[in-house]
Protein backbone atom coordinates (compact mmCIF):
# COMPACT_ATOMS: atom_id res chain seq x y z
CA UNK A 1 0.00 0.00 0.00
CA UNK A 2 1.26 3.45 -0.87
CA UNK A 3 1.48 5.77 2.08
CA UNK A 4 0.64 9.30 0.95
CA UNK A 5 0.38 11.10 4.28
CA UNK A 6 2.39 10.67 7.45
CA UNK A 7 3.83 12.48 10.43
CA UNK A 8 6.90 14.45 9.31
CA UNK A 9 10.19 12.99 10.60
CA UNK A 10 11.28 16.55 11.38
CA UNK A 11 8.49 17.02 13.94
CA UNK A 12 8.29 15.28 17.30
CA UNK A 13 5.19 13.39 18.42
CA UNK A 14 3.87 15.74 21.06
CA UNK A 15 0.81 17.72 22.04
CA UNK A 16 0.57 21.30 20.83
CA UNK A 17 0.39 24.12 23.32
CA UNK A 18 -0.46 26.80 20.75
CA UNK A 19 -3.89 28.47 21.07
CA UNK A 20 -6.80 27.12 18.99
CA UNK A 21 -6.70 28.68 15.54
CA UNK A 22 -3.06 29.77 15.74
CA UNK A 23 -1.16 29.10 12.52
CA UNK A 24 2.27 28.50 14.10
CA UNK A 25 1.46 24.79 13.92
CA UNK A 26 0.72 25.07 10.19
CA UNK A 27 4.01 26.89 9.61
CA UNK A 28 5.86 24.21 11.63
CA UNK A 29 4.25 21.46 9.59
CA UNK A 30 5.16 23.11 6.28
CA UNK A 31 8.78 23.73 7.28
CA UNK A 32 9.09 20.17 8.61
CA UNK A 33 7.59 18.73 5.41
CA UNK A 34 10.07 20.73 3.31
CA UNK A 35 13.01 19.56 5.44
CA UNK A 36 11.83 15.94 5.04
CA UNK A 37 11.27 16.31 1.32
CA UNK A 38 14.74 17.78 0.79
CA UNK A 39 16.18 15.05 3.04
CA UNK A 40 18.16 17.54 5.13
CA UNK A 41 16.83 16.82 8.65
CA UNK A 42 20.13 15.53 9.96
CA UNK A 43 22.04 18.57 8.80
CA UNK A 44 19.51 21.27 9.60
CA UNK A 45 19.75 23.51 12.66
CA UNK A 46 16.86 25.77 13.65
CA UNK A 47 17.23 29.08 15.48
CA UNK A 48 14.00 30.50 16.94
CA UNK A 49 13.79 34.00 18.35
CA UNK A 50 11.82 35.09 21.42
CA UNK A 51 8.03 35.10 21.65
CA UNK A 52 5.71 32.25 20.67
CA UNK A 53 8.27 31.33 18.00
CA UNK A 54 10.75 30.20 20.69
CA UNK A 55 8.80 26.97 21.20
CA UNK A 56 10.08 25.66 17.92
CA UNK A 57 12.38 23.52 20.07
CA UNK A 58 9.43 21.68 21.61
CA UNK A 59 8.21 20.51 18.23
CA UNK A 60 11.11 20.10 15.80
CA UNK A 61 13.08 16.89 15.76
CA UNK A 62 16.33 18.69 14.86
CA UNK A 63 19.16 20.54 16.63
CA UNK A 64 17.99 23.92 17.96
CA UNK A 65 19.70 27.04 19.32
CA UNK A 66 17.53 29.54 21.17
CA UNK A 67 18.54 33.10 20.21
CA UNK A 68 18.00 36.29 22.20
CA UNK A 69 15.09 38.50 21.10
CA UNK A 70 15.62 39.62 17.50
CA UNK A 71 19.17 38.25 17.26
CA UNK A 72 18.51 34.98 15.44
CA UNK A 73 19.94 36.26 12.11
CA UNK A 74 23.21 37.15 13.88
CA UNK A 75 23.34 33.74 15.60
CA UNK A 76 22.56 32.12 12.25
CA UNK A 77 25.40 34.12 10.67
CA UNK A 78 27.91 32.81 13.21
CA UNK A 79 26.60 29.28 12.88
CA UNK A 80 26.53 29.23 9.08
CA UNK A 81 30.06 30.66 8.91
CA UNK A 82 31.18 27.92 11.28
CA UNK A 83 29.29 25.17 9.43
CA UNK A 84 28.77 26.20 5.80
CA UNK A 85 27.71 22.66 4.88
CA UNK A 86 24.71 22.72 7.26
CA UNK A 87 21.25 24.17 6.61
CA UNK A 88 20.53 26.96 9.06
CA UNK A 89 17.19 28.68 9.43
CA UNK A 90 15.78 31.25 11.80
CA UNK A 91 12.12 31.31 12.83
CA UNK A 92 10.97 34.71 14.02
CA UNK A 93 7.80 36.58 14.82
CA UNK A 94 7.04 40.16 13.83
CA UNK A 95 8.00 41.68 17.17
CA UNK A 96 11.23 39.71 17.08
CA UNK A 97 12.23 40.43 13.49
CA UNK A 98 10.46 43.65 12.50
CA UNK A 99 10.95 45.58 15.76
CA UNK A 100 13.82 44.64 18.07
CA UNK A 101 15.73 42.66 15.44
CA UNK A 102 15.62 45.04 12.45
CA UNK A 103 19.34 45.72 12.59
CA UNK A 104 20.27 42.02 12.64
CA UNK A 105 17.85 41.00 9.87
CA UNK A 106 18.82 43.84 7.52
CA UNK A 107 22.54 43.29 7.86
CA UNK A 108 22.34 39.50 7.61
CA UNK A 109 20.28 39.99 4.44
CA UNK A 110 22.62 42.63 3.10
CA UNK A 111 25.68 40.44 3.66
CA UNK A 112 23.87 37.80 1.66
CA UNK A 113 24.28 35.26 4.46
CA UNK A 114 23.36 31.89 3.01
CA UNK A 115 20.60 31.25 5.55
CA UNK A 116 16.79 30.98 5.40
CA UNK A 117 14.46 33.08 7.50
CA UNK A 118 10.87 32.12 8.25
CA UNK A 119 8.95 35.14 9.40
CA UNK A 120 5.60 34.79 11.15
CA UNK A 121 3.61 38.01 10.78
CA UNK A 122 0.47 37.98 12.91
CA UNK A 123 0.46 41.75 13.48
CA UNK A 124 0.82 41.61 17.28
CA UNK A 125 3.16 40.55 20.08
CA UNK A 126 1.47 37.22 20.78
CA UNK A 127 3.19 35.72 23.81
CA UNK A 128 3.16 38.90 25.89
CA UNK A 129 -0.58 39.39 25.43
CA UNK A 130 -1.28 41.19 22.18
CA UNK A 131 0.60 44.48 22.24
CA UNK A 132 1.07 46.66 19.16
CA UNK A 133 3.84 45.57 16.79
CA UNK A 134 5.37 47.44 13.84
CA UNK A 135 3.18 45.20 11.66
CA UNK A 136 -0.09 46.09 13.44
CA UNK A 137 -2.61 47.34 10.88
CA UNK A 138 -3.88 50.90 10.84
CA UNK A 139 -6.91 51.15 13.07
CA UNK A 140 -6.18 47.79 14.68
CA UNK A 141 -6.88 47.76 18.40
CA UNK A 142 -4.31 46.11 20.62
CA UNK A 143 -3.56 46.37 24.34
CA UNK A 144 -1.07 49.16 23.63
CA UNK A 145 -3.06 50.78 20.82
CA UNK A 146 -6.46 50.64 22.54
CA UNK A 147 -7.88 53.38 20.28
CA UNK A 148 -6.57 51.73 17.12
CA UNK A 149 -3.19 52.26 15.47
CA UNK A 150 -2.92 55.81 14.18
CA UNK A 151 -0.30 56.54 11.50
CA UNK A 152 0.17 60.05 12.94
CA UNK A 153 1.56 58.70 16.18
CA UNK A 154 2.56 55.08 15.46
CA UNK A 155 3.48 55.22 11.78
CA UNK A 156 2.53 52.63 9.18
CA UNK A 157 2.77 48.84 9.29
CA UNK A 158 6.23 47.79 8.11
CA UNK A 159 6.49 45.69 4.96
CA UNK A 160 9.45 43.40 5.56
CA UNK A 161 9.25 41.20 2.45
CA UNK A 162 9.31 44.25 0.17
CA UNK A 163 12.01 46.02 2.15
CA UNK A 164 14.36 43.03 2.28
CA UNK A 165 13.87 42.43 -1.47
CA UNK A 166 15.66 45.73 -2.16
CA UNK A 167 18.93 44.39 -0.73
CA UNK A 168 21.53 42.95 -3.11
CA UNK A 169 22.38 40.05 -0.81
CA UNK A 170 18.84 38.67 -0.91
CA UNK A 171 18.24 35.71 -3.21
CA UNK A 172 14.59 35.11 -2.39
CA UNK A 173 11.94 37.16 -0.64
CA UNK A 174 8.26 36.34 -0.71
CA UNK A 175 5.08 36.80 1.27
CA UNK A 176 2.55 34.00 1.65
CA UNK A 177 -0.49 33.43 3.82
CA UNK A 178 -1.61 30.52 5.99
CA UNK A 179 -5.37 31.23 6.04
CA UNK A 180 -6.72 28.75 3.45
CA UNK A 181 -5.73 25.39 1.91
CA UNK A 182 -4.88 27.10 -1.36
CA UNK A 183 -2.63 29.60 0.36
CA UNK A 184 -1.07 26.90 2.52
CA UNK A 185 -0.06 25.05 -0.65
CA UNK A 186 1.54 28.22 -1.99
CA UNK A 187 3.32 28.75 1.33
CA UNK A 188 4.62 25.19 1.22
CA UNK A 189 6.23 25.84 -2.17
CA UNK A 190 7.75 29.13 -1.00
CA UNK A 191 9.29 27.47 2.08
CA UNK A 192 10.80 24.74 -0.04
CA UNK A 193 12.10 27.34 -2.49
CA UNK A 194 13.78 29.25 0.34
CA UNK A 195 15.57 26.12 1.57
CA UNK A 196 16.58 25.21 -1.98
CA UNK A 197 18.09 28.66 -2.38
CA UNK A 198 20.27 27.91 0.64
CA UNK A 199 21.16 24.41 -0.57
CA UNK A 200 22.21 25.93 -3.91
CA UNK A 201 24.25 28.61 -2.11
CA UNK A 202 22.31 31.45 -3.70
CA UNK A 203 22.31 33.70 -0.64
CA UNK A 204 19.76 34.97 1.84
CA UNK A 205 16.17 33.74 1.60
CA UNK A 206 13.12 34.90 3.54
CA UNK A 207 9.46 33.85 3.57
CA UNK A 208 6.99 36.10 5.35
CA UNK A 209 3.88 34.21 6.42
CA UNK A 210 0.68 36.09 7.26
CA UNK A 211 -0.58 34.30 10.35
CA UNK A 212 -3.38 34.40 12.84
CA UNK A 213 -3.49 35.23 16.53
CA UNK A 214 -7.16 34.65 17.44
CA UNK A 215 -6.50 34.92 21.19
CA UNK A 216 -5.02 38.40 20.99
CA UNK A 217 -7.20 39.58 18.13
CA UNK A 218 -10.17 38.59 20.35
CA UNK A 219 -11.88 36.67 17.53
CA UNK A 220 -12.77 33.04 16.88
CA UNK A 221 -10.37 30.81 14.89
CA UNK A 222 -12.56 31.01 11.77
CA UNK A 223 -12.99 34.77 12.08
CA UNK A 224 -9.20 35.04 12.40
CA UNK A 225 -8.72 33.25 9.08
CA UNK A 226 -11.27 35.62 7.48
CA UNK A 227 -9.47 38.60 9.02
CA UNK A 228 -6.23 37.62 7.30
CA UNK A 229 -8.03 37.54 3.95
CA UNK A 230 -10.08 40.69 4.52
CA UNK A 231 -7.69 42.98 6.39
CA UNK A 232 -4.09 41.75 6.20
CA UNK A 233 -3.72 40.76 2.56
CA UNK A 234 -4.90 44.13 1.17
CA UNK A 235 -2.12 45.88 3.11
CA UNK A 236 0.46 43.05 2.91
CA UNK A 237 0.13 41.84 -0.71
CA UNK A 238 1.15 38.25 -1.36
CA UNK A 239 3.78 37.44 -3.94
CA UNK A 240 7.42 36.90 -4.73
CA UNK A 241 9.34 40.15 -4.33
CA UNK A 242 12.69 38.78 -5.38
CA UNK A 243 13.88 35.52 -6.84
CA UNK A 244 17.41 35.13 -8.03
CA UNK A 245 17.51 32.83 -11.03
CA UNK A 246 21.23 32.25 -11.36
CA UNK A 247 24.37 33.20 -9.49
CA UNK A 248 24.27 36.65 -11.07
CA UNK A 249 25.80 38.21 -7.99
CA UNK A 250 29.20 36.74 -8.67
Amino acid at each position, binding site marked *: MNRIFEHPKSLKYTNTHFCPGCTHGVAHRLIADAIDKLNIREKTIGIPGVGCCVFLYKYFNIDVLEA*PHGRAPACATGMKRAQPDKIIFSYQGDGDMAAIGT*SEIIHAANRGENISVFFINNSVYGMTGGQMAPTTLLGQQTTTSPYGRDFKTEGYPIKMAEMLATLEGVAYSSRVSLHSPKHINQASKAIQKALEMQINEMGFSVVEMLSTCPTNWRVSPTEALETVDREMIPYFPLGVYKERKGKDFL
Partner: protein
Amino acid sequence: MLDRKLTKGNIALAEGAIQAGCMFYFGYPITPQNDIPEYFAKNLPKIGGTFVPAESEIASINMVMGAAASGKRAMTSSSGPGISLMQEGISYMAGSEIPCVIVNIMRSGPGLGGIDPTQGDYNQAVHGGGHGDYSNIVLAPASVQEMFDLTIKAFELADKYRNPAMIIADAMIGQFQEACRLIPEHPVKSYDKNWSLLGCESREPRLLKSLYLGPGEQETHNLDLQKKYRTMEEHEVLYESIGLEDAEVMIIAFGTPSRVAKTAIKELRKNGIKAGLFRPITLFPFPKKEIHEYSKKTGKILVVEMNTGQMLNDVIIASDRNSTVSFFGRPGGGIPYPDEIISHAMKLL
Protein backbone atom coordinates in the same frame (compact mmCIF):
# COMPACT_ATOMS: atom_id res chain seq x y z
CA MET B 1 65.54 30.84 26.34
CA LEU B 2 62.82 31.22 23.79
CA ASP B 3 62.83 34.11 21.39
CA ARG B 4 60.86 37.07 22.50
CA LYS B 5 59.55 39.77 20.23
CA LEU B 6 58.63 43.38 20.96
CA THR B 7 54.82 43.17 20.79
CA LYS B 8 51.86 45.40 21.52
CA GLY B 9 49.44 44.09 24.19
CA ASN B 10 46.43 43.94 21.90
CA ILE B 11 48.42 42.10 19.22
CA ALA B 12 49.74 39.57 21.74
CA LEU B 13 46.15 38.94 22.79
CA ALA B 14 44.95 38.40 19.21
CA GLU B 15 47.89 36.12 18.41
CA GLY B 16 47.24 34.18 21.62
CA ALA B 17 43.64 33.64 20.51
CA ILE B 18 44.71 32.34 17.12
CA GLN B 19 47.20 29.97 18.74
CA ALA B 20 44.44 28.78 21.07
CA GLY B 21 42.56 27.71 17.95
CA CYS B 22 40.14 30.61 17.71
CA MET B 23 39.23 30.72 14.02
CA PHE B 24 36.14 32.91 14.41
CA TYR B 25 36.21 36.57 15.32
CA PHE B 26 33.24 38.94 15.18
CA GLY B 27 33.53 42.58 16.19
CA TYR B 28 32.71 46.23 15.84
CA PRO B 29 35.26 49.07 15.99
CA ILE B 30 35.89 50.98 19.21
CA THR B 31 39.01 52.60 20.65
CA PRO B 32 41.28 51.49 22.36
CA GLN B 33 41.02 47.93 21.03
CA ASN B 34 40.98 48.36 17.24
CA ASP B 35 44.32 46.57 16.83
CA ILE B 36 42.53 43.36 17.79
CA PRO B 37 39.89 43.20 15.00
CA GLU B 38 42.43 44.54 12.52
CA TYR B 39 44.86 41.76 13.38
CA PHE B 40 42.15 39.13 12.92
CA ALA B 41 40.92 40.73 9.67
CA LYS B 42 44.44 40.46 8.28
CA ASN B 43 45.44 37.08 9.62
CA LEU B 44 42.35 34.86 9.94
CA PRO B 45 41.67 34.59 6.17
CA LYS B 46 45.25 33.36 5.64
CA ILE B 47 44.62 30.32 7.82
CA GLY B 48 41.06 29.55 6.79
CA GLY B 49 39.45 31.44 9.66
CA THR B 50 36.46 33.77 9.58
CA PHE B 51 36.39 37.46 10.38
CA VAL B 52 33.06 39.27 10.20
CA PRO B 53 32.86 43.05 10.72
CA ALA B 54 29.50 43.00 12.51
CA GLU B 55 26.92 45.79 12.33
CA SER B 56 26.98 46.28 16.12
CA GLU B 57 28.32 44.79 19.31
CA ILE B 58 24.90 43.19 19.79
CA ALA B 59 25.34 41.37 16.50
CA SER B 60 28.99 40.54 17.33
CA ILE B 61 28.19 38.65 20.51
CA ASN B 62 25.30 36.80 18.87
CA MET B 63 27.51 35.77 15.95
CA VAL B 64 29.97 34.50 18.56
CA MET B 65 27.06 32.55 20.06
CA GLY B 66 26.26 30.93 16.70
CA ALA B 67 29.85 29.91 16.02
CA ALA B 68 30.43 28.78 19.62
CA ALA B 69 27.20 26.74 19.60
CA SER B 70 28.75 24.99 16.60
CA GLY B 71 31.57 23.84 18.90
CA LYS B 72 34.15 26.31 17.56
CA ARG B 73 36.39 28.59 19.56
CA ALA B 74 35.04 32.08 18.89
CA MET B 75 35.57 35.52 20.37
CA THR B 76 34.80 39.20 20.21
CA SER B 77 36.46 42.26 21.70
CA SER B 78 35.32 45.76 22.51
CA SER B 79 35.49 48.48 25.13
CA GLY B 80 33.02 49.78 27.76
CA PRO B 81 30.10 51.07 25.63
CA GLY B 82 30.29 48.04 23.32
CA ILE B 83 30.59 45.60 26.21
CA SER B 84 27.42 47.15 27.68
CA LEU B 85 25.59 46.31 24.45
CA MET B 86 26.85 42.73 24.63
CA GLN B 87 25.48 42.03 28.09
CA GLU B 88 22.25 40.52 26.75
CA GLY B 89 24.16 37.98 24.65
CA ILE B 90 26.64 37.22 27.43
CA SER B 91 23.76 36.49 29.81
CA TYR B 92 22.16 34.15 27.26
CA MET B 93 25.46 32.33 26.76
CA ALA B 94 25.95 31.98 30.52
CA GLY B 95 22.39 30.62 30.76
CA SER B 96 22.75 28.30 27.78
CA GLU B 97 26.28 27.31 28.90
CA ILE B 98 27.93 28.20 25.61
CA PRO B 99 31.65 28.94 26.00
CA CYS B 100 33.25 31.99 24.40
CA VAL B 101 35.85 34.67 25.05
CA ILE B 102 35.00 38.37 25.35
CA VAL B 103 37.76 40.95 25.63
CA ASN B 104 37.23 44.36 27.21
CA ILE B 105 40.09 46.82 26.72
CA MET B 106 38.60 49.25 29.19
CA ARG B 107 38.02 52.92 28.51
CA SER B 108 36.66 55.33 31.06
CA GLY B 109 32.98 55.97 31.63
CA PRO B 110 30.13 56.36 32.36
CA GLY B 111 28.64 57.06 28.98
CA LEU B 112 30.98 57.63 26.08
CA GLY B 113 33.67 58.53 28.61
CA GLY B 114 37.24 58.75 27.39
CA ILE B 115 39.86 56.47 25.91
CA ASP B 116 42.38 56.69 28.73
CA PRO B 117 43.32 53.62 30.75
CA THR B 118 40.84 52.73 33.47
CA GLN B 119 39.41 49.83 35.44
CA GLY B 120 35.86 51.16 35.71
CA ASP B 121 34.31 47.98 34.28
CA TYR B 122 35.40 45.64 37.12
CA ASN B 123 31.91 45.38 38.57
CA GLN B 124 30.32 44.91 35.16
CA ALA B 125 32.68 42.03 34.35
CA VAL B 126 32.91 40.36 37.76
CA HIS B 127 29.44 40.88 39.17
CA GLY B 128 27.39 39.85 36.17
CA GLY B 129 26.78 42.88 34.02
CA GLY B 130 23.85 41.26 32.27
CA HIS B 131 20.57 40.08 33.78
CA GLY B 132 20.15 36.98 35.92
CA ASP B 133 22.14 35.03 38.45
CA TYR B 134 25.40 34.20 36.68
CA SER B 135 29.16 34.74 36.70
CA ASN B 136 31.72 35.17 33.97
CA ILE B 137 35.20 33.76 34.27
CA VAL B 138 37.26 36.98 34.43
CA LEU B 139 41.00 37.22 33.80
CA ALA B 140 43.11 40.34 34.33
CA PRO B 141 46.44 40.45 32.49
CA ALA B 142 49.11 42.87 33.71
CA SER B 143 51.70 42.50 30.95
CA VAL B 144 51.96 41.88 27.23
CA GLN B 145 53.07 38.31 27.95
CA GLU B 146 49.94 37.76 30.01
CA MET B 147 47.79 39.19 27.23
CA PHE B 148 49.08 36.25 25.19
CA ASP B 149 49.09 33.55 27.86
CA LEU B 150 45.82 34.45 29.59
CA THR B 151 43.95 34.57 26.29
CA ILE B 152 44.87 30.94 25.74
CA LYS B 153 43.89 30.24 29.34
CA ALA B 154 40.54 32.00 28.78
CA PHE B 155 39.66 29.71 25.89
CA GLU B 156 40.67 26.65 27.92
CA LEU B 157 38.63 27.67 30.97
CA ALA B 158 35.62 28.70 28.87
CA ASP B 159 35.51 25.28 27.20
CA LYS B 160 36.26 23.37 30.40
CA TYR B 161 33.34 24.98 32.23
CA ARG B 162 31.06 25.79 29.25
CA ASN B 163 30.99 29.41 30.38
CA PRO B 164 31.75 32.85 28.94
CA ALA B 165 35.27 33.99 29.84
CA MET B 166 36.11 37.66 29.86
CA ILE B 167 39.51 39.30 29.73
CA ILE B 168 39.59 42.81 31.14
CA ALA B 169 42.62 45.01 30.63
CA ASP B 170 43.05 48.75 30.89
CA ALA B 171 44.09 50.61 27.74
CA MET B 172 47.71 50.77 28.96
CA ILE B 173 48.07 46.98 28.89
CA GLY B 174 46.39 46.91 25.47
CA GLN B 175 48.47 49.65 23.93
CA PHE B 176 52.02 49.38 25.24
CA GLN B 177 54.76 47.17 23.85
CA GLU B 178 56.93 44.68 25.69
CA ALA B 179 59.06 41.69 24.83
CA CYS B 180 56.74 38.73 24.50
CA ARG B 181 57.13 35.00 23.88
CA LEU B 182 54.54 34.35 21.18
CA ILE B 183 54.52 30.59 21.66
CA PRO B 184 52.21 28.85 24.15
CA GLU B 185 53.93 27.89 27.37
CA HIS B 186 52.13 24.52 27.43
CA PRO B 187 50.29 22.59 24.71
CA VAL B 188 46.86 24.21 24.33
CA LYS B 189 44.16 22.10 25.98
CA SER B 190 40.96 21.23 24.19
CA TYR B 191 37.76 19.70 25.51
CA ASP B 192 35.16 17.33 24.14
CA LYS B 193 32.08 19.29 23.03
CA ASN B 194 29.40 16.65 23.06
CA TRP B 195 26.78 19.37 23.43
CA SER B 196 27.50 21.28 20.21
CA LEU B 197 24.89 21.70 17.50
CA LEU B 198 26.13 20.02 14.34
CA GLY B 199 22.90 18.57 12.94
CA CYS B 200 21.41 15.44 14.49
CA GLU B 201 22.99 12.85 12.20
CA SER B 202 22.96 9.44 13.92
CA ARG B 203 21.96 10.87 17.29
CA GLU B 204 19.10 12.50 19.16
CA PRO B 205 18.57 16.23 18.50
CA ARG B 206 20.35 18.64 20.84
CA LEU B 207 19.11 21.91 22.24
CA LEU B 208 20.92 24.93 23.63
CA LYS B 209 18.59 27.26 25.49
CA SER B 210 18.22 29.41 28.57
CA LEU B 211 14.41 29.35 28.85
CA TYR B 212 13.10 27.25 31.76
CA LEU B 213 9.37 27.56 32.32
CA GLY B 214 8.50 24.29 34.08
CA PRO B 215 7.89 24.29 37.84
CA GLY B 216 11.24 24.52 39.61
CA GLU B 217 13.28 24.10 36.41
CA GLN B 218 14.86 27.53 36.49
CA GLU B 219 15.76 27.22 40.18
CA THR B 220 17.44 23.88 39.55
CA HIS B 221 19.33 25.39 36.62
CA ASN B 222 20.48 28.35 38.73
CA LEU B 223 21.67 26.06 41.51
CA ASP B 224 23.55 23.91 38.98
CA LEU B 225 25.27 27.02 37.65
CA GLN B 226 26.23 28.01 41.18
CA LYS B 227 27.79 24.57 41.73
CA LYS B 228 29.89 25.15 38.64
CA TYR B 229 31.02 28.56 39.92
CA ARG B 230 31.97 27.03 43.28
CA THR B 231 34.04 24.39 41.45
CA MET B 232 35.86 27.19 39.65
CA GLU B 233 36.55 28.88 42.98
CA GLU B 234 37.97 25.61 44.27
CA HIS B 235 40.28 24.87 41.33
CA GLU B 236 40.94 27.84 39.09
CA VAL B 237 42.08 30.77 41.26
CA LEU B 238 45.24 32.46 39.95
CA TYR B 239 47.23 35.20 41.62
CA GLU B 240 50.73 36.57 42.01
CA SER B 241 52.26 37.48 45.36
CA ILE B 242 55.44 39.38 46.11
CA GLY B 243 57.03 39.84 49.50
CA LEU B 244 54.00 38.76 51.49
CA GLU B 245 56.00 36.39 53.73
CA ASP B 246 57.10 39.21 56.02
CA ALA B 247 54.85 42.07 54.84
CA GLU B 248 53.38 44.53 57.32
CA VAL B 249 51.29 46.12 54.59
CA MET B 250 49.71 44.26 51.65
CA ILE B 251 48.90 46.18 48.51
CA ILE B 252 46.17 44.53 46.40
CA ALA B 253 45.95 45.59 42.76
CA PHE B 254 45.42 44.14 39.28
CA GLY B 255 46.44 45.32 35.80
CA THR B 256 48.44 48.55 35.49
CA PRO B 257 48.12 49.62 39.17
CA SER B 258 49.84 46.35 40.18
CA ARG B 259 52.85 47.37 38.09
CA VAL B 260 52.98 50.80 39.70
CA ALA B 261 52.59 49.10 43.09
CA LYS B 262 55.69 47.00 42.42
CA THR B 263 57.75 50.19 42.04
CA ALA B 264 56.18 51.61 45.20
CA ILE B 265 56.94 48.40 47.13
CA LYS B 266 60.62 48.54 46.14
CA GLU B 267 60.83 52.12 47.39
CA LEU B 268 59.01 51.27 50.61
CA ARG B 269 61.33 48.35 51.28
CA LYS B 270 64.37 50.57 50.63
CA ASN B 271 63.03 52.75 53.43
CA GLY B 272 62.63 49.79 55.75
CA ILE B 273 58.88 49.34 55.34
CA LYS B 274 57.94 45.74 54.62
CA ALA B 275 55.36 46.09 51.86
CA GLY B 276 54.09 43.27 49.67
CA LEU B 277 51.84 42.81 46.65
CA PHE B 278 48.87 40.55 46.11
CA ARG B 279 47.75 40.60 42.47
CA PRO B 280 44.59 38.69 41.58
CA ILE B 281 44.91 37.25 38.07
CA THR B 282 41.49 35.64 38.11
CA LEU B 283 38.97 38.29 39.19
CA PHE B 284 36.33 35.58 39.00
CA PRO B 285 36.94 33.17 40.62
CA PHE B 286 38.20 35.78 43.11
CA PRO B 287 41.05 34.67 45.41
CA LYS B 288 38.91 34.97 48.55
CA LYS B 289 40.63 32.33 50.66
CA GLU B 290 44.13 33.54 49.80
CA ILE B 291 43.29 37.17 50.58
CA HIS B 292 41.69 36.05 53.82
CA GLU B 293 44.80 34.12 54.89
CA TYR B 294 47.19 36.94 53.97
CA SER B 295 44.96 39.55 55.62
CA LYS B 296 45.14 37.59 58.91
CA LYS B 297 48.93 37.60 58.65
CA THR B 298 49.45 41.15 57.43
CA GLY B 299 46.57 43.02 59.02
CA LYS B 300 46.94 46.13 56.90
CA ILE B 301 45.70 46.27 53.35
CA LEU B 302 45.80 48.97 50.69
CA VAL B 303 43.66 48.39 47.60
CA VAL B 304 44.79 50.38 44.56
CA GLU B 305 42.57 50.63 41.50
CA MET B 306 42.01 52.88 38.51
CA ASN B 307 38.41 53.49 39.56
CA THR B 308 36.63 54.72 42.67
CA GLY B 309 36.72 51.38 44.48
CA GLN B 310 35.17 48.34 42.85
CA MET B 311 37.44 45.37 43.64
CA LEU B 312 37.72 47.05 47.04
CA ASN B 313 34.35 45.62 48.08
CA ASP B 314 35.41 42.08 47.21
CA VAL B 315 38.60 42.58 49.22
CA ILE B 316 36.63 43.87 52.22
CA ILE B 317 34.37 40.80 52.08
CA ALA B 318 37.34 38.44 51.75
CA SER B 319 39.56 40.01 54.42
CA ASP B 320 39.76 38.99 58.02
CA ARG B 321 37.45 41.15 60.13
CA ASN B 322 40.35 42.36 62.29
CA SER B 323 42.34 43.67 59.34
CA THR B 324 42.30 47.27 58.15
CA VAL B 325 41.42 47.87 54.51
CA SER B 326 42.07 51.25 52.94
CA PHE B 327 41.80 52.42 49.37
CA PHE B 328 43.53 54.62 46.85
CA GLY B 329 42.02 54.96 43.41
CA ARG B 330 42.02 57.25 40.43
CA PRO B 331 39.09 57.09 38.04
CA GLY B 332 38.48 58.48 34.58
CA GLY B 333 41.92 57.89 33.09
CA GLY B 334 43.96 58.91 36.12
CA ILE B 335 46.96 56.63 36.72
CA PRO B 336 48.27 56.15 40.26
CA TYR B 337 51.88 57.25 40.77
CA PRO B 338 54.34 55.33 42.97
CA ASP B 339 54.70 58.21 45.45
CA GLU B 340 50.90 58.42 45.81
CA ILE B 341 50.78 54.71 46.63
CA ILE B 342 53.71 55.11 49.04
CA SER B 343 52.04 57.93 50.96
CA HIS B 344 48.78 55.97 51.22
CA ALA B 345 50.67 52.90 52.43
CA MET B 346 52.53 55.00 55.02
CA LYS B 347 49.23 56.30 56.41
CA LEU B 348 48.31 52.72 57.33
CA LEU B 349 51.36 52.24 59.53
